[in-house]
């Protein structure tokens, strides 16, 4: 398995190098063999296509070139040129007036954007060259070029994918890719409460923040990071598997022959999914509070003398969260398991029964292996989802109870993501938030991509069919 993926990768890298070579060869060959229209297109995008009657393509290419230079000269360059220092002129007070200097935040953000613009510019340049080459070859072969109308109409047929994907890809670029690249850059700067734009500058500090994350001195984040990471993993593991097996159990119970009102039981459980989580979770949080219903009744009935500190005791808070999460998780798994249980051929059970197997044996040797096999990827998604399960933790405890021993305002029940959120919102410690974010990515990626290849249902798709 490992060998074959290894080979595949080298092959990919090989073909990657090959295609880079091809690109440069194309650029050279097109220039040498091309006519003056093509040669001029190297400077003026779309010049060739326009003279050959491909007005639409030519105009779009030219427009993109003009846009790029307009953007760079009017806006982009002033930021891109300062990206190596993130600004040197600090904001100062001259008399009563504030004289604004460089804004590091803007320099970084628009610097990154401009860097992307430069890359896009070269891509368009290459596309422009390829278009010229294509047209010349077509003409040389004595064929006619497609009319402008055909080119336009192909956007609804042959090139429909470009029409469909244009907006989604642009949206994801602006609101996901750009911010992520920006935040990855922030992890290598000293952007925090003391270096807030626009009044203060921030600058590159290399790996300083990552060193801080793993340093175990009095100021270091090391011990806290380890503790939060460990709890995140324990939480994700328990939340995933406890819910999985209990949900499976409930589904089997409802599916049991002779149990009536199946729909009613399911509907009751599904309520949990239907009611918005902030309503149900906030209510449950209050239910378990020191002055909440549960403690109130237990004291009234004389079972306990003082309130049970469900949310204020570190260990008890963790247990309560996991228990409440069962309440949320079971219905979801019950739904999925119900659908899948019906797919198991009835005659498997029939023959097992004839062989004298009891319920537990049938579960162990038929139901469970089948379910684990089919739902392998799903369990993995659940696991990575739980690693980042913000809502449950934040609505129930907000990461509390606080601890004096933890750095960065982390609480005992904080996951990496809630800690990241607190650092952004409460501490404005953006640099460390960015570092934690990268760590979350690494942890999630290890499970999502690393473990995925090891799953039996991925390795052997036909296994159970």
């Amino acid at each position, binding site marked *: 398995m490992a060998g074959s993926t290894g080979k595949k990768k080298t092959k990919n890298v090989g073909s990657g190098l090959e295609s880079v070579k091809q690109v440069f060869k194309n650029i050279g060959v097109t220039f040498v063999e091309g006519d003056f229209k093509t040669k001029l297109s190297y400077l003026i995008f779309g010049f060739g296509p326009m003279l050959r009657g491909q007005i639409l393509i030519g105009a779009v290419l030219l427009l993109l070139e003009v846009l790029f230079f307009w953007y760079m000269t009017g806006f982009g360059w002033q930021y891109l040129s300062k990206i190596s220092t993130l600004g040197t002129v600090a904001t100062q007070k001259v008399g009563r007036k504030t004289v604004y200097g460089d804004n590091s935040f803007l320099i970084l953000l628009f610097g990154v954007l401009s860097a992307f613009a430069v890359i896009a510019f070269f891509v368009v340049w290459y596309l422009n060259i390829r278009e010229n080459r294509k047209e010349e070859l077509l003409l040389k072969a004595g064929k006619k070029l497609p009319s402008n109308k055909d080119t336009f109409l192909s956007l609804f047929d042959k090139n429909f994918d470009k029409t469909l994907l244009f907006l989604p890809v642009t949206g994801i670029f602006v609101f996901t890719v750009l911010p992520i690249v920006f935040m990855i850059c922030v992890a290598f700067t000293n952007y925090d409460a003391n270096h807030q734009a626009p009044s203060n500058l921030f600058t590159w500090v290399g790996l300083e923040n990552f060193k801080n994350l793993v340093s175990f001195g009095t100021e270091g984040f090391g011990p806290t990071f380890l503790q939060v990471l460990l709890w995140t993993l324990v939480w994700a593991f328990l939340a995933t598997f406890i819910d999985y097996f209990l949900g499976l159990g409930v589904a089997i119970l409802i599916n049991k022959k002779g149990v009536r009102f199946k729909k009613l039981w399911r509907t009751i*459980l599904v309520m949990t999914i239907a009611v918005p989580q902030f309503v149900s979770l906030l209510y449950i949080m209050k239910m378990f509070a020191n002055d909440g219903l549960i403690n109130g009744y237990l004291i009234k009935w004389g079972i306990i003398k003082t309130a049970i500190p469900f949310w204020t005791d570190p260990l008890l808070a963790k247990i309560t969260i996991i228990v409440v999460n069962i309440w949320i998780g079971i219905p979801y798994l019950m739904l999925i398991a119900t659908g899948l249980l019906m797919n198991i051929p009835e005659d498997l059970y029939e023959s097992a029964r004839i062989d004298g197997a009891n319920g537990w044996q049938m579960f162990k040797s038929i139901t469970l292996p089948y379910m684990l096999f089919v739902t392998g990827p799903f369990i993995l998604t659940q696991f990575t989802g739980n690693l980042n399960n913000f809502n449950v933790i934040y609505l129930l405890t907000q990461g509390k109870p606080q601890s004096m021993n933890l750095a960065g305002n982390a609480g005992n029940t904080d996951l990496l993501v809630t800690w990241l959120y607190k650092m952004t919102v409460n501490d404005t410690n953006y640099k460390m938030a960015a570092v934690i974010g990268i760590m979350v990515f690494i942890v999630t990626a290890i499970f999502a991509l690393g473990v995925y290849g090891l799953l039996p249902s991925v390795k052997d798709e036909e296994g159970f069919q």
Partner: protein
Amino acid sequence: MNKSYKTKRTIGNVIAYIVLILISIIWLFPFVGLVLQSFRSYATEYGGMVDYLLPKAFSLDNYKFLFSGETNYVRWYSNTLIIAFFVTAFQTIIILCVSYALSRMRFAGRELLMRFWLILGLFPGFLTMICLYFLLKQFGLTQAGAIPGLILVSVASSGMGYYVCKGYFDTIPKALDEAARIDGATRARIFFTMIIPMSKPIIIYTALVAFMAPWCDYVFASYVAFGHDQSYNVAVAMTRWVWTNDYQGYFTRFCAGGVLIAIPVTLLFMFLQKYYVEGVTGGAVKG
């Protein structure tokens, strides 16, 4: 032999019923509690936490308070409705487009795009909060303009959530497309007149999931609308009631507000439950 098998089975069923009834009580308890406490007046009794479930006197004070004009509850509610409506419409369209392109068309960079989006999805969403806030601020879409801002951000990244829908499209036989293409239909025509009408269940599933999400959006909504009461959605406003105003006895008012939010959303969900189940089971198996 036969008789003992029967008694065994009866006992088994009795145990099953007992367990199921217990489960039902546990699962319904918070909802019953929520409804009961929403009828406890904050004027004649204490509106905060108490140690009894049944209100001493039935009262609609909390509900009256919500609509009294002393709070912006109606505003928050319509904010959330507006967000949910637009997000549902745009997100469904975008997901359908992306799914069709990725399921039916083969173009250069398709695999690369899918892998790239998969990796992007592994970054925690809150990481980029500060940057998104700033981007929105550039366009004036924070605080007073938070509602269009929230819609924009939710819709912009929705293309990455195509998995379930693409999985469904993959199950529609390609032979149908090819037959239509031989008859001269364009890709766009196939998409609009063939695939979309055949995909009612998955469209409903996609729309339902998109509609439910804004009702729970606390994190980003509270960040973008920060300090601007008029732009809150219900999740932000109700969470603030629970956390910051407990000493004033806002708990029962939260219960009433929560009930009014939960009822329509829950009814809608129950009504479309069949499609939801189809969607999640299909998604779970395909991964």
